[in-house]
């Protein structure tokens, strides 16, 4: 086996664009998932039973089945009912729903960390349910759950690689294309792997800065 990295280096700018796209997909799906998770966790801890059961079903279903098969279902089964999704839409919807389920589980644990006195104070001040969630519970959730949330963001950044299977040209998709053209498989996929390592380290540092400045979280980067 001889490695010829010189022959594939000209793909690097293309790959970097793909890496940027992977970060965007992960960020969009994470933001959507965070909102779903906040609503889901609020329902699970405070909502009535008839709302709790469907939310619990949603969480169980999406956390117990692979994200890939969920997106396969969206992409291949929905056209049978006349709903045709483009690859990127299917991937974004699938990843958002999947992230929503995991973040519901994570955020529910954070809800337990809110001191009862603050909830009582909110009630005394006449806050509505929604106001309590937004002004009292959410800041606590962000601070105590910072490590698990940033960890999940990293997992989602890695998860964007499965968008390649549906033909989305993010980092792995571009690597597959370059592989089909040049047949330098080992070189291309080792470069891709290296880029993912760099990408997730950059994401870790950015998350650390965001946590530090916006929420004054004192956490380690690694």
């Amino acid at each position, binding site marked *: *086996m001889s490695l010829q990295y010189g022959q594939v280096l000209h793909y690097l700018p293309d790959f970097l664009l793909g890496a940027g796209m992977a970060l965007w997909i992960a960020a969009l799906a994470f933001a959507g998932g965070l909102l779903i998770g906040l609503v889901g966790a609020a329902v699970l801890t405070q909502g009535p039973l008839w709302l709790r059961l469907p939310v619990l079903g949603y969480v*169980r*279903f999406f*956390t*117990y*089945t*692979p*994200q*890939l*098969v*969920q997106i*396969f*279902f969206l992409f*291949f*089964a929905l*056209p*049978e*009912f006349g709903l045709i999704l483009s690859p990127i839409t299917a991937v974004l919807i699938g990843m958002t729903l999947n992230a929503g389920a995991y973040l519901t589980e994570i955020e529910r644990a954070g809800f337990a960390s809110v001191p009862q006195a603050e909830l009582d104070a909110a009630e005394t001040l006449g806050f509505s349910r929604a106001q309590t969630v937004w002004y009292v519970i959410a800041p606590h959730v962000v601070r105590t759950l910072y490590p698990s949330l940033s960890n999940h963001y*990293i997992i989602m950044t*890695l*998860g*964007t*690689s*499965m968008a*390649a*299977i549906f033909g989305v040209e993010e980092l*792995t998709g571009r*690597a597959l294309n370059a592989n089909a053209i040049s047949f330098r*498989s*080992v070189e291309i*996929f*080792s470069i*891709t*792997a290296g880029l*993912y*390592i760099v990408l*997730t*380290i950059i994401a870790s540092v950015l998350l650390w800065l965001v946590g530090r400045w916006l929420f004054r979280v004192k956490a380690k980067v*690694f």
Partner: protein
Amino acid sequence: MSAWQILANEAPRFFTWWNMFFLGQALLNTLIASVIGCALGYALGFLLATLRLPQVMPLAPMRTAAILWVETFRRIPFLVLLLLVFFLGQALRLEAPLWAVAITAVAIRMSALAAENVRAGYDSVRPQQWEAALTMNLPALTALRRVVLPQSWRVILPPSIVHVLSMVKETSLVSQIGFIEITFAAKMLTQRGFSAMITYGTALMLYFCVSWALASLARAAERRLTARPALTIPTP
């Protein structure tokens, strides 16, 4: 067509004995890849986590190498890792069968996750236990095996079952190299003309059942292991 019409039309043709036998074999392949891969990965993970202990490994470069291995493979997507193992096997002309590629990829990915998990277990044991064992002149490995490990199972075991669960889900990506596990079987059945709703719906149900069983096991393990008073050491 509505979902019920598709189901009514295709269910009698789909749920035949042969199709179920085919899916059963695929389920077995999924379980083989994830369980054997996880077992190998955990063996490697124990080794890596132990190499990171300064009590056991006095050589700093070895400790750094163990950390680098973990940090590297934690940050590579499973799909890319799988393709890398697959193409590396081809480039080295190993002629490895697909199940071997799948198990190797799962084991490498798992070793990184397992090492973090085992390290958390080791860290949960108070340092005084190490100091006492080493002061009594126990060799480091004996101290690890007889003193530290029995106390850290409580922390290691429940997440490790959850890790097997997540690997069962990750192995759906192995369909991309053509290993016939549940996802690839669903794909093949779709290509034979069955409705994607039924094939992928069945695949989702199979994954759900396996995951549900594993999650129940993890919850039971957690309840049993954390309820035992002998293991909860009061902090000073």
